[in-house]
């Protein structure tokens, strides 16, 4: 296969052919090519369609700022939309397809939009599609949505992995053009830890694309020499294919390394990309400049591109978009394109220069004081129409046109902390304003120093200044001699006159006319312009388009450009795959999974597990023959209430509290009294937030005069610990009290049921008596079990039965569980899960997470009297506010359906038995519901207005969202053993 537009030279390996396909047609390119350069080499200029008018488009640039040549890369689950052909590195077998066209790129049905462009001007949609109102969702919007969008997602799961990494350095150098190389070399030689990141797969930046550069030595040779030295320095890390995408606070930089995007499939064990967080003491931005277009009629045809890009294609990739080209410029840099292309044997039909005093080029026609006023060629440029200085219009045949409206320093990253660039008249461009992120210096073209010599010098100077800042002494390095031509430019933004459209934002199809319309309709502030016309809102964030729009608005308002303003850029510098930002936190690894020590034991028993925060807890333990979870749960409840059961309660938060002021401390953090808790006793504690709302509840045991053990709910373990540390360090810093979370240190099991003592007798070492007299309800103690293993025993009960909780060091949890099961065999001990636990606590009217929902008070929970008024505890003062103490305040009650076969829906609302059913007549709501196998009925806990005084009342329970409607009776929340005889047995 021939590559008709391939030239000689370049930084590609012509010895190796790579086969790739675009829209189903096979082509060949070479290592070192991008998809765009390889397509151009094959004579393909048409690579995409624009967003709104579906105009045919080819590459405008040769870099990541590309707005036009976006393709779908790869196929199947690895298909990625909107990949810039200009940065996609060619590999053998690469498959790409054009996007946003139907049925094909050459014949796109929606190109009809272009015919109606007069109707589809900026903001036209705000003025129509309003009648009838329902037609928006049904008709207009679906049509618009289908037409909109660029590439497609396959909706398959991405098979690749993405890693995250962290690196630290003294100096981060962003970009490896002349400024970046000189900065990195200066800092590297000074011994500083340096990271050099380069977006491209080649180091060297613009030096790879230019024939001018160093004057006394080979440019490529110098780049190779510097890179070889940098790579040999142990204190320097050079990262290519790595884009610095964001600058965050305090020297934290986000970078994306494309590890495997240049190969068909990531190598074994390799991620596709790595998201780096780089902690840099200082950084130098050496990101170069981005060339900007000039707007003129039909300036968007395939073949029309930035002059600098045309030169880069020729010099670096040995490609020309056409055999005859022309150049349209307002500055000297454009002339370099003509010179370089002529040197490569490409015909340059003319250089059209807007300046009357344009310089001359030997062997090339220069049309000074002229403008391109229109172009032709349906799917690619065939000719341009030029208005010469003398006013005569001339048509010039050419297949490509290089355009240069000057260069904009690449200030993007300096804006990430809302720094604002300032106008520099000499180069007719915005430069960094000095209010960029602290610690980020700017060198080279990014700072408006456009010549190679200036870039080299400023890179070194900036590096030295940065090092000096952090106390590292460096020395200026010898820099090679380089061209130092001033940028001679005469600002020129758009060619006036004519009736057609001149494009500013090529992707979003924003034209000069749109800006004029925005001005006419008073959308004149930069932000209004942007939002009304969508200028700069495309995937390039307006890198090539914002400046032109701004300049035209300045012209229309009669203000100088800096007075019109500038829009700032936001992260990321170039779009970043969402998967890369997600890293490995996907699927089952989204959050860590916490397992209790007896998890494997439970799994062996066939337990069903449920997520409780990050914990996995056994929900129930089905046995053979059981067909529904209810059967299992009912059996477990009956077993506990009838004989004995065991439940893993390791996940409860456990906080060890020591110190002589432990009791004082607890007395302040719990609403109820704790000062006089005796050693060897446990007490229920209700903890309030300072605003008087219940925060958490649990028990605290006093193991010794100065040693307490607190339990918290599983869900609130972290928050309670944080809260206690706040109280300890910030409120009462001199109390003698120490805290540590021991949640992970102890495995804990509830052994509950009338035979629980009998089971534990076989476990607890004989020297510890656990009979009712020596170890009564709410007793606690440090004991040993199984012949000397240290343990803690608490006689507390969530189920309402005679019950114990026994804790052993975590590593013995599994063994203890197995031992308890063995010991309980003769009593048919039954392991039970969180469901049975929940049923039994509802039967007992114990509050849990559903009741402690962040809005309930002690009063609501029926514990109003527990809140001691005689002491200062957190929340006691605020809990006295009137709104929290209304006579009809919600109270926790039990409810039972009058028809025992009816069910109760948690979340249903209570209504009076007569009267309207609406929010105004709402009486309360059900927090928890369960089926009680003991009562053979559904039961529920509810918050009911003035509930304490409504026992026996019949009410309607409504749940319109689940279509439930039940009649219930209000009863005490203590359904089972209200006197508490069982737990004291």
């Amino acid at each position, binding site marked *: 296969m021939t590559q008709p537009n391939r030239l000689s030279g370049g930084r590609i390996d012509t010895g190796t052919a790579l086969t790739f396909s675009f829209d189903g047609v096979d082509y060949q390119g070479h290592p070192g090519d991008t998809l765009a350069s390889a397509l151009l080499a094959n004579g393909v200029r048409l690579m995409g369609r624009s967003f709104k008018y579906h105009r045919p488009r080819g590459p405008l640039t040769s870099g990541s700022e590309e707005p036009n040549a976006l393709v779908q890369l790869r196929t199947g689950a690895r298909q990625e*939309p909107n990949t810039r052909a200009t940065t996609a590195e060619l590999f053998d077998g690469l498959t790409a397809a054009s996007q946003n066209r139907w049925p094909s790129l050459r014949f796109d049905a929606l190109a009809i939009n272009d015919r109606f462009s007069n109707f589809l001007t900026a903001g036209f949609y705000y003025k129509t599609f*309003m009648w009838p109102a329902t037609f928006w969702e049904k008709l207009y919007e679906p049509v618009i949505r289908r037409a*909109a969008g660029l590439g497609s997602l396959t909706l398959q799961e991405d098979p690749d992995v993405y890693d995250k990494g962290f690196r630290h350095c003294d100096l981060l150098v962003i970009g490896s053009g002349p400024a970046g190389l000189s900065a990195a070399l200066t800092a590297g030689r000074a011994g500083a830890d340096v990271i050099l990141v380069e977006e491209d797969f080649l180091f060297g930046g613009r030096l790879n694309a230019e024939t001018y550069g160093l004057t006394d030595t080979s440019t490529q040779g110098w780049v190779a020499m510097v890179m070889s030295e940098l790579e040999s320095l142990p204190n320097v890390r050079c990262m290519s294919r790595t884009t610095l995408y964001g600058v965050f606070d305090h020297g934290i930089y986000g970078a994306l390394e494309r590890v495997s995007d240049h190969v068909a499939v990531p190598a074994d064990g390799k991620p596709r990309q790595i998201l780096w967080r780089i902690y840099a003491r200082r950084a130098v931005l050496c990101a170069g400049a981005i060339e900007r277009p000039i707007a003129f009629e039909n300036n968007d045809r395939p073949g029309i591109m930035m002059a600098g890009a045309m030169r880069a294609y020729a010099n670096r990739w040995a490609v020309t978009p056409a055999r005859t080209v022309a150049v349209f410029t307002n500055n000297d840099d454009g002339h370099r394109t003509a010179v370089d292309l002529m040197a490569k044997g490409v015909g340059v039909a003319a250089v059209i220069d807007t300046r009357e005093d344009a310089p001359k080029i030997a062997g090339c026609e220069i049309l000074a004081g002229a403008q391109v006023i229109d172009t032709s060629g349906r799917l690619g440029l065939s000719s341009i129409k030029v208005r010469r200085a003398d006013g005569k219009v001339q048509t010039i045949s050419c297949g490509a046109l290089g355009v240069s409206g000057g260069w904009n320093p690449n200030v993007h990253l300096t804006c990430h902390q809302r720094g604002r660039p300032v106008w520099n008249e000499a180069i007719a461009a915005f430069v960094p304003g000095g209010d960029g992120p602290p610690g980020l210096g700017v060198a080279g073209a990014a700072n408006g120093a456009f010549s190679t010599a200036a870039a080299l010098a400023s890179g070194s100077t900036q590096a030295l200044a940065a090092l000096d800042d952090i106390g590292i002494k460096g020395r200026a390095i010898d820099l090679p001699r380089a061209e130092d031509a001033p940028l001679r430019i005469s600002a020129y933004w758009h060619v006036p006159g004519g009736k057609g459209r001149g494009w500013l934002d090529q992707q979003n199809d924003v034209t000069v006319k749109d800006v004029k*319309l925005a001005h006419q309709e008073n959308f004149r502030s930069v932000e209004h312009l942007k939002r009304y016309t969508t200028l700069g809102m495309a995937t390039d964030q307006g890198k090539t388009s914002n400046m032109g729009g701004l300049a035209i608005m300045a012209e229309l308002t009669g203000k100088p450009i800096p007075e019109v303003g500038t829009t700032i850029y936001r992260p*990321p510098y170039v779009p970043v795959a969402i998967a890369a930002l997600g890293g490995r936190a996907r699927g089952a690894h989204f959050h860590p999974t916490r397992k209790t020590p007896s998890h494997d034991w439970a799994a062996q028993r066939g337990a069903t597990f449920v997520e409780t925060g990050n914990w996995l807890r056994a929900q129930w333990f089905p046995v053979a023959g059981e067909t529904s979870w209810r059967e299992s749960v009912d059996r477990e409840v009956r077993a506990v209430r009838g004989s004995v059961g065991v439940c893993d309660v390791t996940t409860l938060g456990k906080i060890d509290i020591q110190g002589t002021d432990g009791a004082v401390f607890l007395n302040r953090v719990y609403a109820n009294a704790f000062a006089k808790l005796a050693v060897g006793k446990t007490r229920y504690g209700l903890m309030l937030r300072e605003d008087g709302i219940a925060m958490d509840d649990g028990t605290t045991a006093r193991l010794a005069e100065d040693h307490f053990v607190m339990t918290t709910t599983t869900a609130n373990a972290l928050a309670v610990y944080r809260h206690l540390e706040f109280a300890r360090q910030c409120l009462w810093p001199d109390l003698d009290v120490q805290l540590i979370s021991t949640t992970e240190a102890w495995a804990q099991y509830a052994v509950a049921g009338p035979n629980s003592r009998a089971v534990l007798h076989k476990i607890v070492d004989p020297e510890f008596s656990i009979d009712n007299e020596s170890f009564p309800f709410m007793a606690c103690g440090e004991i040993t079990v199984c012949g000397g293993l240290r343990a803690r025993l608490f006689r507390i009960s969530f189920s309402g039965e005679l019950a114990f909780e026994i804790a052993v060091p975590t590593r013995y949890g599994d063994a203890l569980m197995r031992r308890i099961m063995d010991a309980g065999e003769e009593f048919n001990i039954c392991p039970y899960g969180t469901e049975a636990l929940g049923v039994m606590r509802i039967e007992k009217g114990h509050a849990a997470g559903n009741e402690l*929902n962040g809005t309930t008070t002690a009063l609501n929970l029926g514990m109003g009297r527990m809140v001691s008024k005689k002491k200062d505890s957190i929340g006691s003062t605020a809990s006295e506010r009137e709104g929290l103490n209304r006579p009809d305040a919600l109270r926790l009650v039990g409810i039972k359906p009058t028809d025992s076969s009816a069910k109760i829906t948690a*979340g249903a609302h209570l209504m009076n038995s007569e009267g309207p059913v609406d929010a105004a007549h709402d009486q309360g709501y059900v927090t928890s519901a369960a089926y009680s196998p003991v009562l053979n009925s559904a039961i529920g806990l509810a918050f009911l207005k003035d509930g304490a005084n409504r026992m026996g009342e019949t009410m309607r329970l409504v749940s319109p969202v689940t279509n439930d409607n039940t009649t219930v009776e209000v009863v005490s929340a203590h359904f089972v053993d209200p006197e508490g005889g069982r737990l004291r047995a």
Partner: protein
Amino acid sequence: MRYSGLRVIKEALTGHRGWKPAWRNPEPQKDYDFVIIGAGGHGLATAYYLARHYGKKRIAVLEKGWIGGGNVGRNTTIVRSNYLLDGNEPFYEYSLKLWEGLEQELNYNAMVSQRGILNLIHNDAQRDAFIRRGNAMILNGADAEMLSVDQIRREYPFLNFDNARFPITGGLAQRRGGTVRHDAVAWGYARAADSLGVDIIQNCEVTGFRIENGTCKGVETARGFIGAGKVASCVAGSSSHLMAKANMRLPIESTVLQAFVSEGLKPVMPGVLTFGAGHFYCSQSDKGGLVFGGDPDRYNTYAQRGNLPAIEDVCESGMALVPAIGRARLLRIWGGNVDMSMDGSPIIDRTDIGGLYFNGGWCYGGFKATPASGMCYAHLLATDTPHEVAQAYRFDRFRRGNMIDEKGMGPQPNAH
């Protein structure tokens, strides 16, 4: 001038010469009956309803920057009324009803798109809470629907149903929820208010209040003193900063909520989706970008930008729920300053200073409230009594213990 399809056609055929400015650039007058500070969505809506529905004249809206430059121009465009508590739900449902007729009322297509919102459920406690909420919505006259996993699969087949750390067990849907083109809301209100004679004055920062004997007489601005019968602060995001000039301390802290948009994609996401086991919500704009967000950055800030932990957290959650978006690229991140109030609910109330009114504390949910906030604030300004659906939004609710705490997080603003 009235907008219509015919008008668009006529202008297209006559070179678009007839389009008039959407609003004037008036010079500020010496004094007004009403001075509203802040030309964001709420301020502009207030001005519009004050003029249109309460028949008031001599109204100015003063704006530090440009029309719609506050949070109405930097949000994730979601509208819904899926609230739980009595203090909130009637207000947000009223707002949703106003959205439903907004475009015809304003003669401006703000692209109110009721494609539905779906809150996913991942555990039983969450289900209980969402049933309670769904019931509260219906009992307040809104719509709500519990969806099964199968129903969700049909609408969102690409979610992670089979390999999730926190499996989806159902969802609460509000079909009338959806999105609105945010900027267009500001522009629509601005244009409509302007056409009723409201002076919208851009680049006119309020630098202080003139308060004499406990009564506010007007405001000092970058363009001189402007007298006012009533002054109405409406600058959510900057409320504390502004009201400090009247020596007021507010029950508000400011933080930043970051939001995200992907590159344009062909349609995949039918409605608005929220993850119940992580910090992620997402919709797809008409232009094709996935618009998504998560939780605020948590620390106090006015910087209008955030940091990596929140960004990565949102994308991790997004990948956990919708792994199919992995190869789409994040295009832009922005941040909005949000007034986080002490119970997560807003304030529309008089202040202790005569003639000075306050509207703020919208947390990160102010966009959906725009029409009702404007109407209720206009009602308060016009009548000096709270609007029926905004009666709970009072300053004194914290003193009295009448908090409206949807999330149950207490007086810790960054947790709401």
